[in-house]
């Protein structure tokens, strides 16, 4: 199954996008590129703009997905989000950072709200 990482990542992000839609989020962007890195999913629900970092794993041999969101990656996520907000002229809105962990074996999603704070 694992042909390249990009494909695996996309597969996981699709699962999360489906999960978000099911939970009444509106998907604003996918794979949004900024000079600081890529934002996997930008979603919106009840007045809060949500930036989602997706981590896909088929086993915990190399550590869990949530562990892979290191302090450096958190900083990049926050900087990217700021870039997105300025680019979309939407500074001053409520913002949240979530982490979605996908188990590739059973396609289950562990969704962590408010996972990153500055």
């Amino acid at each position, binding site marked *: 199954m694992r042909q390249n990482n990009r494909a695996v990542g996309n597969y996981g992000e699709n699962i999360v996008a489906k999960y978000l839609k099911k939970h009444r989020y509106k998907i604003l962007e996918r794979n949004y590129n900024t000079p600081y890195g890529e934002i996997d999913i930008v979603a919106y629900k009840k007045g809060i703009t949500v930036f989602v970092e997706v981590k896909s794993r088929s086993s915990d041999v190399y550590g869990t997905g949530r562990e892979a969101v290191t302090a450096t990656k958190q900083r990049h996520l926050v900087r990217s989000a700021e870039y997105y907000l300025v680019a979309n002229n939407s500074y001053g809105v409520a*913002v949240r950072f979530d982490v979605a962990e996908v188990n590739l074996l059973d396609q289950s999603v562990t969704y962590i709200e408010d996972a990153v704070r500055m």
Partner: protein
Amino acid sequence: MLSKVYSYGLKGLEGYPIEIEVDIHHGMPTYDIVGLADAAIKESKERVRSALKNNGFQYPVAATVVNLAPADTKKEGSCYDLPIAVGILAATSQLASTTVKDYIILGELSLNGELRKINGILPMLISARQQGATKAIVPLGNAEELQYIEGMQIYALSNLVEVTQLLGNTEKYQPVALKHWNSSTDNVYSADCDMKYIKGQFAAKRAMEIAVAGGHNILLIGPPGAGKTMLARAVPSIMPDLTFDEALEIAKIHSIAGTLDGFVDRRPFRSPHHTASAVSLTGGGSKSRPGEISLAHNGVLFLDELPEYPRHTLETLRQPLEDGVITVARSALTVTYPANFMLVASMNPCPCGNYGSSTQVCKCSASQIHNYLSKLSGPLLDRIDLHVEVDSVDYKDLQTEQLSESSDTVRQRVNVARSIQTQRLKDVAHIHCNAHMGNAEIKKYCKLDNRSSQLLEDSFRKLNLSARAYNRILKVARTIADLDQQQDISVQHIAEALQYRSLDRKYRA
């Protein structure tokens, strides 16, 4: 939305009001504390967040700014966790914010929302009451030390949920009940240090009784094993009962130092080891903490083996011994702490310890003795009112089955003498005993008849006494007269007081 919570901070022994403003607005989920907060306050972020989440409250998905006003004084400690949490709840409308402004709120939060005991709350609330505050919310662990504060409704609660319930509905909780001061210190001291177990040493015990009755400094000189330390250890058991004012002064200092367990029920007895640093005695550090001499305020500072303390350390005691206060100046702040302590010190007269003994032979050379005694400076010894030689115990005295006078009996006499002093000095602020009398009081209360003043004049010339020693002899004589329950000082009181200047007579001649 903006909310405001009232709290208190400390500058030395004085509290000052702090307004904690919490502003929550849209934007990146940041958390900032401004207003010169120290590391413990900055860390409150994590405690507050966990405490809110674990008690079913929403932590806002928004930018949070906390301002501790006035913004130009340094704030320290963990006591602002609770007011910050209440501020966040009020700013996010999870709490009716109309009642919040009526309270002074203080407390540290644990991750599950329990309120933890904090230091320095007693002086803060005393200042708050003086400045017109009427209600306060504090941790349950601090309730005991606050039960003597009159004119204030203090609610001691155990967790965050109780705080929100109280702010919503005041009827559910009762404020801490006011307690009345009971001055008796009976049964407070452990029995093994009782005076009745000290065999012989009648002169030393008499001197100790005088010293304790008037709060005078005393130095015990004698060979090893004579019972100097035992005598000093028995001092707490004969100390006079505390008045409420004295207890409050002690409690304030110990509340800041974090050594207050419940409220004060006895006079402090501090015995720092001779390796203690000068700063640990006087107080200091970057935050100007109180030192041993302030922790011994209204009690006893016991320095065992006095010449073993570094000279520099002992010399720092000179000024507080005279003034009864110590001003600790550091870059962050300058604080004046009270330090009216009674100094009890013990020492050997020479390196081998037997110089001046009636039974043992001293093996030291004259220069050795001189060197040993010169570790103590003249100015320091001058500040010690009673120098008492404690000789080895006689075998006959040691063998006797008969117990000496018990501490309870001695304490009764001390209490009588002390209450005469308190009554006499009741109009003078911060002076509770003869030893702390100033020049004006000495002039007023230590009048001598002709015979007494003649004796004092002769001794003054013969012993080359200093003006300070003169004043101290008068004060000791006053205490001896008080123990005698005499209105006036007579010649035998002066004679006995002079008797206790043995260092002037014997060792420094």
